[in-house]
């Protein structure tokens, strides 16, 4: 795009932006509010009274617990791998005969 085209584009754009921002405000019609309230108060299934105020807290708690669990798993795995026989231990945990491998390692140590 040439500089003159850019200038033309910018000029046109500024006018469009101004037209968008200068829109006259729309006022609600006379019966609008009453109509909305009628709809809202007729919502039995969605009545806020049925929502538990603690629901958000419980949901947050579940996610935080999941995050904490994930972090704990990563820390435990890192600790195990850092041990002298850590790789063997993790490998044995992943293999079929897990209990035998763990017991054997424990007895050797």
């Amino acid at each position, binding site marked *: 795009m040439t500089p003159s*085209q850019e200038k*033309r*584009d910018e*000029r*046109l*754009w500024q*006018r*469009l*932006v*101004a*037209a*968008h*921002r*200068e*829109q006259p*405000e*729309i*006022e*609600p*019609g006379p019966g*609008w*509010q009453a*109509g*909305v*309230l009628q*709809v*809202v*108060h007729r*919502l039995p299934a*969605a*009545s*806020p*009274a049925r*929502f*538990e*105020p603690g*629901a*958000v807290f419980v949901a947050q708690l579940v996610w935080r617990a999941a995050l904490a669990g994930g972090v704990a798993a990563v820390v435990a795995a890192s600790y195990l791998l850092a041990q002298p026989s850590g790789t063997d231990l993790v490998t044995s945990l992943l293999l079929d005969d897990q209990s035998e491998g763990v017991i054997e390692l424990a007895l050797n140590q």
Partner: protein
Amino acid sequence: MEQQPQAPTDAELVRLVLLGKTEAFDTLLARHRRFVFKIVGRHVPRDQVEEVAQDVFVRAFTSLARYSGRAEFEHWLSRLAVRSCYAFWREAYRRRETAVSTLSEQHQTWMAQALADQAGQAFQQGAAVKEAREVLAWALAQLSPENRMVLTLVYLDGYSVKEAAALLGWSQVNVKVRAHRARVRLRKLLLNAGERA
């Protein structure tokens, strides 16, 4: 001197509604309806504003328990309003109900004048502003609902990328990329239409 009883705050009204006193919602609606109309009025056709604004308040009522009270109630409401407008456009595009207007001779004359910088003085006149709005509506109708929303928020309303991302619930990168692409597309559309004029 007699003290005036203080009006309940938005957070107090929300709490009352959640405790079952749903009539408290009447006050919330009366207090914030103009604010919602202002947002919705910038995003949807004028004859649809009341319907979309109603949808915003119905959504607000049904999801009031999710309002944490940490942010301003109006801030929370503005997110619902923007998302309702987005839902309106998605539905309208899906049903192909949007009237894709064509540019009339008057619009093309206005564009030619605007590009040639002859509309400067005439722009303050009502007719020129009306034509500008119609040209903009025509151009926006060529975009997808996503690009339309993001372009309106960032370039026309003047929200920052961060604010627009929070309003739409999108990532900042998504907003930035879409806004840029939409602006480039709109520029091409307008320049092509202007050259034809």
